[in-house]
């Protein structure tokens, strides 16, 4: 069976890759495109480790077919920082020590950025619900929530 030739925009760059029709976007990002920052956790949409933005919308890349991103835009964890300047969410994760093993971290950061893109001043409850689809099995959630709320404060213009 012929492979699918996909042309898409990933982190602002035009990319093309070949994939099998049933390959996941997660698999294509890691294996065909070579962007291994997006992590594979459950592959059933439960853990959030593979979160990416597709046309600006937060999605689990394990439940997107790679062929679906033809002509669409994808943002992965590699596209969150501005060159060498970390995004405030990344910076605050470091400052708050909001990670241990790091497998869940790219998914949390992409999801948190998606939250702050639309809601600059989320409450703690909103933040916890928004991130409820991202599972962390070592740090626990408290430092992560503190980091995201602190990043939100850092992103808001001075009152």
């Amino acid at each position, binding site marked *: 069976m012929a492979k699918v030739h996909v042309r898409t925009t990933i982190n602002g760059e035009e990319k093309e890759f070949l994939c099998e029709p*049933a390959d996941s976007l997660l698999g294509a990002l890691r294996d065909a495109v070579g962007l291994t920052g997006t992590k594979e956790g459950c*592959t059933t949409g439960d853990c*959030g480790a593979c979160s990416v933005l597709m046309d600006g919308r*937060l*999605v689990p890349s394990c*439940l997107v077919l790679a062929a679906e991103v*033809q002509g669409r835009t994808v943002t992965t964890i590699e596209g969150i920082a501005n060159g060498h300047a970390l995004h405030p969410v990344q910076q605050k994760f470091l400052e708050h020590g909001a990670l241990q093993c790091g497998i869940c971290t790219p998914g949390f950061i992409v999801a948190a950025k998606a939250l702050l893109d639309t809601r600059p001043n989320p409450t703690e409850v909103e933040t916890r619900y928004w991130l409820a*689809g991202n599972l962390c099995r070592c740090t626990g959630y408290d430092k992560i929530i503190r980091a995201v709320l602190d990043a939100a404060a850092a992103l808001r213009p001075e009152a």
Partner: protein
Amino acid sequence: MQTTRYEAPESVAAAVRLVDADPGAKVLAGGTDLLIQFRAGLHRPTAFVDVKRIPELVDIAVDRDGVRLGAATAAAVICEHAEMRRLFPGLVEAVQLIGSTQIQGRSTVGGNLCNASPAADTTCALIVNRAQCIIAGPRGERTVAVEQFCTGPGKTVLQRGELLVSIRIPRPSPGTADAYLRLIPRSEMDIAVVGAAVSLTLGPDGVCTAARVAIAAVAPTALLVPEAADALIGSRLDEAALRGAANAASAAARPIDDKRGTIAYRRQVAGVLTKRAAAIAAERVKGRI
């Protein structure tokens, strides 16, 4: 090894041709059920027919008569839609309960219907809003009421070559509001043990003039319960009327015993949620009058 194709038709007619020509093809909407089932080996489609490039499958069109909801519109898009929230707060509540933020970015109401889980959250809320499924097929279009669309767990009325295109929801008459409640043992990310949806119309004097009640996860399909609605119609939603609706919902429930709950528990909860959802819908109407 059997191969799988990926197709992304841009019109309903092209999608119908694809699924009609190939009985092994599966329609791909959000993929939050289909791709999990595929990777678990439950089915091996010969093709994924991705319907999200078909404009009328991914939009929400509001007119005088109501709303036409594209079957493959993402849950998040529905929840952000101001008119959907205003017209159908209960339905939006049900949509919002499905999965995480990530899943909301993918999952669809059409997919929720076609997956035909007895515990689907949106089905009851569609039923009480008198929603109709618009189905396209090789012999043209047909319309099926949502309460008749699912015929059992994982089974629907869709025939070979047919595709759920959209869901038509009539504009609620003045003084109408809906509500949906489900019971899960935690606050998020779970499958309903029981769900209940209610839509009520109240006259200016507070008397209930029309009602629809539907319950989920207590039978092989979501159930419309006219006896529960009858208990509410003509009343001012006093305690006796609410208790009557609750008893009717409990009586209509024919649940199974499983790890999520026993038969007796589900029966009772079906009544409790019906009563509470009716009270919420009534409060919503009063907020609007």
